[in-house]
């Protein structure tokens, strides 16, 4: 039995582009695309110090799996998505989405579509912490 050509996971550990890229590697593929969503220091005009990511884990994992399976169905040879949970500092990666395919052309749009789907479907919420005010839940993005 060959393993699935897609992989979805939730983790509390730091994300590694190198590991994702190794997982995506395939001798038929000339292109590996990676997107990293990163905690930045500014949101809605407030200075962000860190963000805690909460999740309904079974629901989030199921959606994430559907999304990467959909990318493979649409032409990716392999697709991987890893969402990090827990408390993240500015500069840390919260989401890593990657695809590999024979030629790069379709990869850009597949990655963009995957990110839109993750942002609208995956049951994860940001609890943003600020320098000057109490933490807030972000709902909708």
């Amino acid at each position, binding site marked *: 039995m060959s393993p699935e050509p897609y992989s979805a996971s939730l983790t509390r550990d730091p994300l590694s582009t190198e590991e994702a890229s190794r997982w995506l590697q395939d001798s038929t593929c000339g292109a590996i695309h990676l997107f990293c*969503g990163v905690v930045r220091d500014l949101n809605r005009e407030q200075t962000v110090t860190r963000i805690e*990511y*909460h*999740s*309904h884990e*079974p*629901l*989030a*994992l*199921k959606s994430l799996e559907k999304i990467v399976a959909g990318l493979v169905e649409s032409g990716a040879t392999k697709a991987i998505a890893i*969402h990090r949970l827990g408390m993240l500092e500015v500069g840390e990666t*919260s*989401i890593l989405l990657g695809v590999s395919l024979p030629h790069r052309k379709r990869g850009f749009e597949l990655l963009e579509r995957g*990110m839109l789907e*993750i*942002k*609208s*479907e*995956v*049951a*994860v*919420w*940001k*609890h943003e912490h600020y320098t000057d005010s109490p933490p807030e*839940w*972000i*709902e*909708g*993005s």
Partner: protein
Amino acid sequence: MNLNILLFASLKDAAGSSTIDIKLTEGDRVADLIEAIRRDHPQLSERLDHVRVALGDEFVTPETVITEGAELALIPPVSGG
């Protein structure tokens, strides 16, 4: 039947708890659950308009019939990524 509903994000804060208990009748649907929450937990009411309901690891529609022991969750608009 008694159901224990999971809450997330601002709903959890508004309820002051990560779950609420709701009493439903055999044959009730997801739409009835939402009405029951509005009635029993008025502090959640205004947030329910944008909430979706999940059963286990799947989203369900307002027409879905709820059965005993269902693992239900209220899902506010997500903000992951």
